[in-house]
């Protein structure tokens, strides 16, 4: 799976924590690094042929960037990828994001086990 940081915030401790937890749960995690555009994220997702894209954002630009990622994935024929997000995202934005194809939003402090359970339950492509 891909752990990506769209937008301009420079804090990736959360992203790294989830990446490590996912690794410990047996997953292969590609971390894109900071300050990624939706185009960079989707390009990576396609080349890496990932099952899941996890978007981490703290800058508040999620309402624009998250749906854009989903849109680009669809455009490039990768709509079987599970997309979810985390970081600093107000509760009131969650319905909008879900309507745009983001499967779930996990706020700060969510136990990593919950995220892992969610992935296993919702992955769209057959598990290897």
């Amino acid at each position, binding site marked *: 799976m891909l752990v990506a940081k769209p937008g301009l915030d420079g804090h990736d401790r959360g992203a790294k924590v989830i990446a490590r937890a996912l690794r410990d749960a047996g997953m292969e995690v*590609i971390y*894109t*690094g900071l300050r990624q555009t939706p185009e960079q994220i989707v390009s990576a997702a396609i080349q890496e042929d990932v099952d899941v894209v996890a978007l981490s954002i703290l800058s508040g630009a999620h309402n624009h960037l998250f749906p854009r990622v989903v849109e680009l994935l669809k455009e490039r024929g990768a709509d079987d990828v599970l997309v979810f997000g985390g970081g600093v995202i107000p509760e009131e934005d969650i319905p909008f994001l879900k309507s745009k194809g983001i499967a779930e939003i996990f706020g700060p402090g969510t136990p990593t086990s919950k995220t892992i359970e969610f992935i296993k339950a919702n992955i769209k492509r057959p598990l290897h």
Partner: protein
Amino acid sequence: MKELVRRCIEGDVRAAARLITLLENQDRDAYAALYRLKDHSGRAQIIGITGPPGAGKSTLVDKLITQFRARGLKVGVLAVDPSSPFSGGAILGDRLRMQGHATDPAVFIRSLATRGSLGGISKATHAAIRVLDAAGYDIVLVETVGVGQSEIDIVRVTDIVVLVSVPGLGDDIQVIKAGIMEIGDIFVVNKADRDGADRVVRELRAMLEMQAQLSHGQTPLGGPDTLVARDPDFMHHAGLVSGLSHAGGEESFIPPILKTVAETGAGVPELADTLIHHFERLLQTGELERKRRESIHYQLSQFVFDEIAHLLSLPELSKVWDDLAQQVFSRTLDIYSAGMALFHSIPIQGATHEDPHA
């Protein structure tokens, strides 16, 4: 599958990526489909980049991509990172340093986890190289971690191996002594703006000159390197070098040693030039053909071993296993005879996958 392969040959990124995934998952139909790629491969230059962690390989690869792109070449990259032996998972972090190229349609970057393979690359790496070759990439860079004598599989799947080292890794002799040095065609001292860079270059040069002399039966001269010459490990490995030697024929030359500062890009254009010239040289001297034949031998043997392992694990054999194990346990049979009996009961049969000629 046919459709996937066709799209891959046409350069469809998603198809190539999907095919690589299937190969990583040991999908037998995908492996059989590699047959269709054979008329479209052999063109790409395959370059391996290896060295200890922290040497700056990913940053170097990032800058090399820029150089090759500037020369109008399409570049594929396979970045291999180790899988956790405990969880089976992996953090694949090389791509991070190359994301600047993510939206260039002429660049394809794929991360691969070793998934239990111990030689530094994954089982599917050579197949993934074939895929990128067939998809039309001119250069395929394979990046992997190599610190010791066992991570040398990279030499078997590439045309040129670049060994990247850095100053300040404690004991420079340690880095140089490890068997991995014998597989380098080109040596790069990265982070060359740091103290000790020139010393590493000198030590590398001395080591390589000694290797070259030894493989021609000459005794190395004394001097600051004499200490190393007396090291029995080194002498032993040096004796084996002629077999793995990158210097074709009787010519005695030492591999190029370059200094780079990958972060700034300093020295990287020269590295790109050196790589291109080296490849041309390999082509002209026939050395490339020799290497590729060796590589094919290796891949064939890997394939056969994997196939036997697969057949041995088939359910129809489990009773045979149990019977033979019982006989050895109750001392009616010795283990060697049991082993041979097991071997002879391997069911070699016709194609069990999609007929590639169909």
